[in-house]
């Protein structure tokens, strides 16, 4: 393998160990995975609180994933670059999910307000009696809508203002 000696930079990288897993390690890992599976199923009997439940479940899944990655996929013995690719991809997934999540979470009130009057169902949105005024969702003061303008009493609204919606629910157009 003459080419290796000449590639100073790649010397260690290219050295492949042909690591063979012993039956003990393989079976042991598998047993570990089975135990963790039992643990995660068992954990639903215990309530740690809504957030903590998810964290416990994900922690166990993470531990199982690490076992599979490091031993079954022999990442523990693999070249550094392959490890980097895999965990690099994980980092990009996390970035993608977390940034999108931050945005969506912060917009929740704007959607909830809309849902309050237009309920989404498999058949398409259905108008319902509103419980909150959408105008109040911006975070600013809800009481101050019309400002100083005086509206004549006799003028009845022709089109429902979001806080004055019709009594009967109606079915909005469906997607298809």
């Amino acid at each position, binding site marked *: 393998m003459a080419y290796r000696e000449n590639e100073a930079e790649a010397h260690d990288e290219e050295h492949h160990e042909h690591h063979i897993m012993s039956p003990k390690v393989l079976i042991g890992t598998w047993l570990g995975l089975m135990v963790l599976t039992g643990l995660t199923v068992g954990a639903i009997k215990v309530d740690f609180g809504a957030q903590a439940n998810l964290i416990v479940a994900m922690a166990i899944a993470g531990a199982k994933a690490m076992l599979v990655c490091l031993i079954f996929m022999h990442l523990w013995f693999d070249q550094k670059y392959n490890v980097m690719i895999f965990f690099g991809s994980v980092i990009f997934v996390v970035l993608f999910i977390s940034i999108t999540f931050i945005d969506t979470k912060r917009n929740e009130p704007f959607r909830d307000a809309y849902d309050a009057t237009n309920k989404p169902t498999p058949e398409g949105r259905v108008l319902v009696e509103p419980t909150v005024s959408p105008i109040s969702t911006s975070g600013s003061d809800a009481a101050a809508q019309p400002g100083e303008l005086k509206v004549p009493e006799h003028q009845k609204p022709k089109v429902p*203002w*979001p806080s004055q919606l019709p009594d009967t629910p109606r079915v909005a157009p469906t997607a298809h």
Partner: protein
Amino acid sequence: MKNFSGLLMNSSLDPAGFWFPDQASQNAELVDDVYFFIYWVSIISFVIIVALMVFFVRKYKRNKPDHMPPKQSDHNTVLEVGWSIPVGIVGVILFYFGAIGYIDAKTPPSDAYVVNVRGYKWAWEFSYPNGATSTDLYLPANTPIKLVISSDDVLHSFFVPAFRLKQDAVPGRYTEFYFETKEPGTHHMFCTEYCGTQHSTMGTRVKVDPETQEKVMDPETGQPMVENQVFVLPQADFEQKLKELGNPCEGLDAASCGKLLYAKKACVGCHSVDGSKIVGPTFKGLWGSDRKFADGTSAKADENYIRNSVLNPKGQVVAGFNPVMPTYQGKLSEEDIKSIIAYIKSLK
């Protein structure tokens, strides 16, 4: 082309007038200031880059194919870091002022006057706190305004260049922005999020006579007239306008009221009254005719049929047309529908 050279002449006196429409909101001032800061930074950088490029090309020309430049300098870390720093500083400045203006436009004061904006294919509908609605936007002058925007069908985007503001109308949620109007004036508005066939007519557009489908010309200037605009009115005029909008059909018979609604509620975009086919079937000769539907059934065009077609347009799609019409449930009252039926009846 004549106009363009005229505009160029103009620009030497007033670059803002060349690049931008009027400033009609407090927000516009900051936007323009930041814009022109970047504008000058860009022009200076660009001139330097191109001047150097041209200078090098002329000065360091290859005289003969074997000409080898004597010095092969390959890097200079101080220089590299040095020219990155100004880029970074400009970036920080721009980010700061951009964010300030943006946060401002997203943070309405509690006493802002609220107008609801609803986009649908292919028109805007503005509703005011008294329940009045309009297809033009009327705003009081020198007042803080908050627009609460929503959409009935697909994404739209409400854009008023003179306010330097735009915001998407997203179905399933409310979006909003705030600004403060300045002096009374008339401005354009647009839809800037692509929304289908008539996207380009959703907003200020050239006025077309609903009956002849001809452009309407301004008798004084000879230029085409436009409709669907933003009117910033003095406070008193604004209140007067709101009253009128509250009851558009006052004093009109049913068919005339229907004709008014036909224009106002954007029926005009898809249904002609002269027999031509636009997006939907024409209204001319509709009344009493036999309608053949895409699913093979048919019906006679009577009150019931028209009412159904308005409220549940996808239920009975006439053969040869696409089911694109949105429902007008909630947008037209029972009275309105009767007026429209009367109008269709009158179109023999």
